[in-house]
């Protein structure tokens, strides 16, 4: 557990980066710091590994004041991931990942074996191990950054806008991956972002900050979105809060239309199901192949009702050329469809009275 007790940072030039923070970061959970640029997020993060020394107050790690711990040793026990990955350009990917184990005195073989495990854990193919960082895409570099931070299995992970430099699609993938990893590893994660959507997606708890590191609200994502503490927080959440809230509501409230004719698994011919001018082509096992009209073919946007959010359902309906989102089961087999109108109706119902609002347990990621 990390505990900030009146931790403050005042720079020599008089700038007050953090006025005095009291915060508990629970072990094994993800706590997200979110707030406008310059509000002190990076400063707060760096107080934990002593890259910034508080000018007042203290930071406790499992009850010990970090100021009492030797900086190098403390840092080797804390993973740190930053926006630009900061990989060593002159070291191969595998040796980048092996850095902290090597610093801890592991022999090269063991450190590399561990690094190879981690590359696999973060979903990088083995052939990337021998490459140099410049030979990887931005998203791959971020994965290496995460692997490197995890290499010595530190209980604490500090992440400073780790995904904000990659494009939105890759970013969503990385967020997904982090959720999966965190589900497996249960680290104490302190994650900084200025994207509220990312915050509610990843955080078990979200800390909304305003200037000088003052806490505007500390809540679970659902409470934050449904009950912002004050007008300032509400404004920060943005006018499209209704839409952002979609990301948190499960898609299982969307009424599905059955497939007609229903696909039968034992037929080895695929099927085509008409929707207006469009046809949905399914393969023999019932997985959607494409939307087709005449010679046109388009990919099929899908969602998994039991797992995905309303937002995913809306996206799928908006992206499908036919205007129908296809619901699939965990194996990817089509189970039904939902028109745009049906999704929007479900949306209105969920947003409307508030009685239909999901409890935190129903929020997809909160239940992991």
């Amino acid at each position: 557990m990390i505990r900030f007790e009146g931790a403050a940072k005042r720079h020599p030039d008089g700038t007050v980066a953090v006025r005095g923070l009291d915060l508990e970061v629970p072990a094994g959970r993800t706590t997200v710091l979110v707030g406008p640029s310059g509000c002190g997020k990076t400063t707060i993060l760096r107080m934990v590994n002593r890259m910034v020394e508080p000018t007042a107050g203290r930071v406790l790690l499992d009850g010990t004041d970090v100021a009492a711990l030797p900086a190098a040793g403390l840092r080797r026990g804390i993973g740190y991931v930053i926006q630009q990955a900061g990989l060593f350009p002159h070291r191969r990917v595998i040796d980048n990942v092996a850095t902290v184990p090597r610093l801890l005195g592991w022999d090269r073989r063991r450190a590399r074996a561990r690094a190879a495990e981690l590359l696999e854990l973060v979903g990088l193919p083995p052939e990337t191990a021998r490459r140099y960082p410049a030979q990887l895409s931005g998203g791959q570099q971020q994965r290496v950054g995460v692997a490197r931070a995890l290499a010595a299995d530190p209980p604490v992970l500090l992440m400073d806008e780790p995904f904000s430099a990659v494009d939105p699609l890759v970013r969503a993938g990385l967020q997904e991956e982090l959720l999966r990893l965190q589900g497996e590893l249960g680290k104490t994660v302190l994650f900084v972002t200025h994207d509220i959507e990312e915050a509610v997606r990843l955080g078990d708890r979200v800390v909304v900050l305003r200037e000088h590191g003052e806490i505007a609200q500390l809540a679970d994502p659902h409470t934050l979105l449904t009950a912002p503490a004050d007008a300032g927080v509400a404004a920060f959440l943005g006018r499209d809060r209704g839409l952002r809230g979609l990301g948190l509501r499960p898609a299982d409230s969307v009424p599905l239309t059955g497939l007609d004719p229903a696909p039968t698994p034992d037929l080895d011919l695929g099927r085509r199901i008409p929707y207006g001018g469009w046809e949905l082509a399914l393969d023999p096992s019932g997985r959607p192949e494409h939307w087709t009209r005449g010679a046109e073919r388009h990919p099929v946007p899908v969602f998994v009702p039991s797992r995905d959010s309303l937002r995913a359902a809306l996206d799928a309906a908006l992206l499908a050329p036919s205007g129908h989102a296809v619901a699939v089961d965990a194996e990817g087999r089509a189970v039904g469809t939902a028109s745009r109108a049906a999704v929007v109706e479900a949306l209105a119902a969920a947003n409307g009275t508030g009685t239909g609002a999901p409890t935190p347990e129903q929020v997809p990621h909160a239940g992991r």
Partner: protein
Amino acid sequence: MLDGEPLVRWHWLGDHLGYLADLTADHAVIALVPVLLALLLAVPLGLACARFPRLYQPLAAVFNVVYALPSLAVFVVLIPYTGLATRQTVMVPLTCYALAVLLPTAVDGLRAVPEPVRQAATAMGYGPWRRLAAVELPASVPYLIGGLRVAAVSSISLAAVGALVGRGGLGYLFVDGFQRTFPTPILAGIALVALLALATDLLLVAARRVLAPWERGVAR
């Protein structure tokens, strides 16, 4: 030039092959040993300057002034201390000239490491010296070799001037040719200086490919 004297007397070249080879080897030693010495000095000085930035300005100023001095004048001034016709007369100033090139490149190279890389290293528990040695120094190898290319080539050409104070590898061919109004050795000297510079440069380019494999994006 004398009328009737051909530009190149080929048989003279043929008769003096061994002599020319000796002069070239001598020239390489006089010119390149100072560059190596300068490299050995530039790395620790560069690391110190990167660690304590206040050192850099005064040091750079000293070597810049040395660099601005006319080489012949420096050679002459050194004669009373090192003696006429000793190698040191030429090699001491050449070391200073090379250092004037290499110190700034060493410091620039160490500083060119991107800030996020430095911060990531610090966050992983590298102390300041260890980080310089394990991260910044190796990452700056391409810079250092770039500096070495400039220093080596200019040292090879400056070393020729050393012949005027009695010691000078291929430079001796120029003195000899002028005194005898005999162009063949002069042209041979020019060609050999150029060849030596070219060979050294190619060697450094090859060294860079081996020592900084990440730069060309292929596995070693």
